[in-house]
């Protein structure tokens, strides 16, 4: 079995779903190791041990230089472990780190991976989920970014002893990109869109009011998504956009409300396990791919469903 390393920008004692999936995946390889570009608390270290991780590399740094510390940590950990497989999260920042280091070390980069076999064959979706492709590295270390909701989270049967090593980083004077300001985004209690088990999304048909969409999402503990028409209209933040130019989601359940299902929207959600669509227009293309289609007014159907879910849960 090849050896593997996972990289995280930061890791708390309550890792995200995507991070847990990465830990589950790495634990199936030889000498599972983790590198984190920040302090890792004792509690977070216990989480790593519970997944069978044997080695943790850390180095904290807080220079106001974008990405430089993280790539130094990743590079040092890759050199220290000589891992054949390096796993990263699928967000833009992580995939860029992996891609840059693949160039620097003449390795391979595969993004949007949904699984990796023991002989390092990666599976991913192509062309917005219309193809399933298998690919592998032909040279050097394989850097792979894992799409959330791809792997069943499964901690190890027993804890391992975790060895911790503080990485000694060389000083670099390559400060090209300065962080001039940082503004916190509005925090949400809802799950992250790309990681959520359930997504409720609204489109043009919500007519400016995301209330019913948000209410059903909260009844289901779901994330809220939107079509480009809805984000372009300013009804909801661009962060909620699903589709070709927004997030790609693959939840257990996707509820589409007031979205016609144009091809760019389908691109972002058609690998969901179950799709339920509510639309006034019986000819909406979304009904062609929905497991359950409801021709009706979302302003009536969604609140009724939310109320019924709360009633049954009570």
């Amino acid at each position, binding site marked *: 079995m090849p050896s593997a390393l996972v990289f995280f920008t930061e890791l708390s004692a309550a890792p995200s779903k995507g991070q847990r999936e990465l830990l589950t995946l790495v634990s199936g390889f030889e000498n599972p190791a983790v590198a984190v570009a920040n302090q890792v608390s004792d509690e977070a270290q216990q989480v790593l041990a519970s997944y069978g991780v044997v080695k943790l590399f850390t180095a904290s740094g807080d220079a106001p230089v974008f990405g430089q510390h993280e790539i130094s940590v990743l590079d040092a950990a890759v050199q220290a472990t000589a891992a054949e497989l390096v796993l990263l999260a699928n967000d833009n920042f992580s995939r860029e780190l992996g891609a840059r280091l693949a160039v620097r070390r003449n390795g391979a980069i595969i993004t949007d991976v949904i699984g990796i076999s023991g002989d390092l064959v990666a599976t991913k979706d192509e062309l917005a989920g*219309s193809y399933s492709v298998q690919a592998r590295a032909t040279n050097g270390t394989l850097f792979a970014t894992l799409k959330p909701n791809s792997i069943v989270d499964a901690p190890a049967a027993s804890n391992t002893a975790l060895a911790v090593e503080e990485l000694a980083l060389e000083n670099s004077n390559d400060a090209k990109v300065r962080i001039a300001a940082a503004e916190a985004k509005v925090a949400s209690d809802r799950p992250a869109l790309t990681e959520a088990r359930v997504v409720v999304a609204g489109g043009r048909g919500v007519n400016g009011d995301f209330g019913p969409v948000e209410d059903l999402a909260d009844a289901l503990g779901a994330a809220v998504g939107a079509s480009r028409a809805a984000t372009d209209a300013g009804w909801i933040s661009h962060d909620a956009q699903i589709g070709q130019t927004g997030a790609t989601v693959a939840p257990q359940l996707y509820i589409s409300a007031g979205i016609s299902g144009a091809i760019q929207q389908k691109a972002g959600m058609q690998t969901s396990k179950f799709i339920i669509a509510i639309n006034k227009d019986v000819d909406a293309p979304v009904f062609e791919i929905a497991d359950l289609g409801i021709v009706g007014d979302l302003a009536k159907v969604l609140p009724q469903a939310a109320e019924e879910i709360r009633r049954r849960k009570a």
Partner: protein
Amino acid sequence: MSEESTTPLKIVVLVKHVPDVQFDRHIDSGTLRLDRAESVLSELDEYAVEAAVSIVEANGGFAAGHEVIAATMGGKGSGNSVKKALQMGASSGLHLNDDALAGSDTIATSKALAALVEHAGNVDLVITGMSSTDAETSVVPAQLAERLGFAQLTHALAVEFDAAQRELAIKRDHLDRTLTLKANLPAVLSVTDQANEPRYPNFKAIMAAKKKTVTELDLAAIGLDAAAVGALGSNTEVIAAEARPAREAGTVINDSGQAGIALVDFLAEQKLI
């Protein structure tokens, strides 16, 4: 800001010819490569062209000596994406046209594009879209920054250019924050579809584009071996590609007042609640 004193900028905008996302797209079962027959300029690259032309217009215009070179790589058809960029206002075109490029992964693609930018000479700024709409890896801009030694300003939600300082500032989402990042030229900039509103070329612009020069080069002209790109120059290979079975339509019901309940019944049946 004194426009007269602005040093002319040499900007390369990278454009890609991709299969139209409005239609069904296919991977050839023999070559395992994308069928590129019905291709257009990648929609997301229009934002890159707009960003380049806007920077020029805000700093004295093309009369001040600025250049916007629309560059692409690939077979013959790829030149169409350059034409569209010229209609949108790019000043000239550069087409790395060589059959050996087919099958390049991001490692080989970034190698070829970096060589093309270096061949163009003294480039201040490389601008790209946030992602291609075919492979959707969105990592080539970062790889170009790595190869060229340029600052990496990617996934820009907004862009500002300070000509006096030759400094770019962008906004970018990162973790739970929106960052303002600043870097001096030379830089690689990738822009999201939030960064601007691409212009629609009018008749005059379309006619003017016909007079602009497009230079075609092969790999030898930019000093690359055929083995440095394509499958041989790539560090990954696709070993299988299978079309996923199309999703089938399930039950469609008309709401007669109880559809919300039916929705919850469906969730219960499928053990989703």
